[in-house]
């Protein structure tokens, strides 16, 4: 279990989900003649003018607004993603300038499949917890791609979540402890310069998602001396709708505990953003004193588990920026042809 020497917490949070959606049934219409089930009802689709950077900017602005912290006071802007618009040139510096930070900050990009955002969060806890920084902004954002016709195409979606880490006494939720568990597991990967990732089929599921999430979560619970029943809410990484519900059940969490943060049935898997956005959606409805467990997962593989406690400050700050519900409410469905054009799936000439 990792704990900071100075207590830390979340001072603000912000989310972003694009306006556009494609229905799972619409993807099935193209590839399976509409036969069989779909892993999520719909997934978010980024507009033509959206990418990891633009979504990070909006989520980051909301996190700053909620915290009431001016951008100039930030010491850190870190963006975790597997879909950074540039291979070489950081997203972090563009996001930082758009937020209006000082140039005297640390800005960097993280990469760890769907766990890149939580890597940034853990590192931000270290910066603030050691006294190196007063305010650190950790962002997870992705415009994930799935190969046309692949199972992944039903879920790989777009969104962002930003968490502003600062001293626990100013926090709307304290971060009490974290555990990180990693191993070299080839469940899912994408080589450099390849457009779409591939599955290491034999490694998908049990040895990857379930093993890592359960390892990190049970270790955190045992070291804190708590059980699943001690938490008001829980969020687990959401590659589809089924996995998080299954792992929650296996770990002893109820449907009611994971419901506020279960977003994948509505927007798909926003990769680096999905667990963090689930946490934000849970904070949208949480009350002071509530306890929240979040376990992220990234292929390749690793899981980070966090225990948080909501403070009184949440009630005053929650309404300062749009809630997840506002982003979920705007839904403009596109058909497969528009989706294919926008996502660069049509090869011309």
């Amino acid at each position: 279990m990792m704990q900071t020497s100075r207590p830390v917490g979340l001072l603000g949070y912000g989310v972003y989900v694009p306006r556009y959606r494609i229905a799972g049934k619409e993807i099935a219409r193209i590839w399976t003649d509409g036969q069989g089930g779909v892993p999520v009802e719909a997934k978010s689709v980024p507009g033509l003018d959206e990418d990891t950077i633009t979504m990070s900017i909006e989520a980051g602005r909301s996190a700053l607004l909620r915290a009431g912290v001016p951008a100039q006071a930030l010491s850190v802007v870190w963006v975790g993603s597997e879909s950074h618009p540039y291979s070489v040139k950081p997203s972090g510096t563009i996001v930082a300038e758009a937020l209006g930070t000082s140039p005297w900050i640390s800005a960097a990009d993280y990469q760890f499949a769907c766990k890149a955002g939580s890597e940034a969060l853990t590192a931000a806890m270290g910066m603030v917890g050691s006294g190196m920084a007063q305010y650190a902004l950790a962002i997870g954002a992705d415009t994930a791609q799935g190969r046309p016709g692949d199972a992944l195409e039903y879920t790989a979606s777009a969104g962002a979540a930003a968490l502003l880490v600062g001293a626990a006494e100013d926090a709307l939720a304290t971060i009490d402890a974290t555990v990180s568990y990693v191993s070299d597991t080839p469940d899912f990967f994408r080589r450099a310069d390849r457009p779409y990732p591939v599955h290491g089929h034999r490694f998908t599921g049990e040895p990857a998602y379930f093993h890592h999430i359960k390892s990190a979560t049970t270790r955190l619970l045992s070291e804190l001396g708590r059980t699943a029943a001690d938490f008001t809410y829980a969020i687990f990484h959401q590659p589809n709708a089924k996995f998080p519900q299954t792992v929650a059940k296996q770990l002893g969490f109820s449907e009611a505990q994971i419901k506020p943060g279960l977003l994948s049935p509505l927007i798909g898997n926003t990769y680096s953003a999905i667990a963090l956005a689930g946490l934000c959606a849970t904070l949208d409805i949480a009350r002071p004193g509530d306890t929240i467990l979040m376990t992220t997962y990234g292929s390749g593989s690793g899981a980070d588990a966090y225990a948080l406690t909501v403070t009184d400050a949440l009630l005053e700050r929650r309404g300062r920026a749009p809630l997840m519900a506002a982003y979920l409410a705007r839904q403009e469905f596109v058909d497969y042809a528009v989706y294919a054009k926008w996502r660069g799936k049509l090869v011309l000439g």
Partner: protein
Amino acid sequence: MDLAKRWRQKPAYYRLEGQRHRTSGEVRFPPQPPRVGESGEEWEAYPLRGTGEIYSFAGVRTAAPEYAAQTPYLVALVRLDEGLLVSAQLTDCDEAELQIGQRVEMVTRRMSDTGVDGLLVYAYKFRPVLE
């Protein structure tokens, strides 16, 4: 590729930063060099709030090459709450639902893509206020 032009306009493009005259309080956008006879110290950077209303709007179906891939898209004159009139693209909305006087807010979006060996250009657009 005009790297320097985009780079110079970052504060205005990325976050709608204008200028305010230190003595008269006049606000202007986009930022400009000092006028003849003025010193560079007379105007200071001034972040605009990014909220306003639609003064007028139009649909673009035939665009300059840099924006051709995005057609059809919407442009508007936006009356900012600071009183300035700014021209910008609109995003996340449909022409049929727009009205003169509608409240809009600034978002930073990808404005253009200058090619696989070029830069991505990010800049302000406006969208109907997210409820």
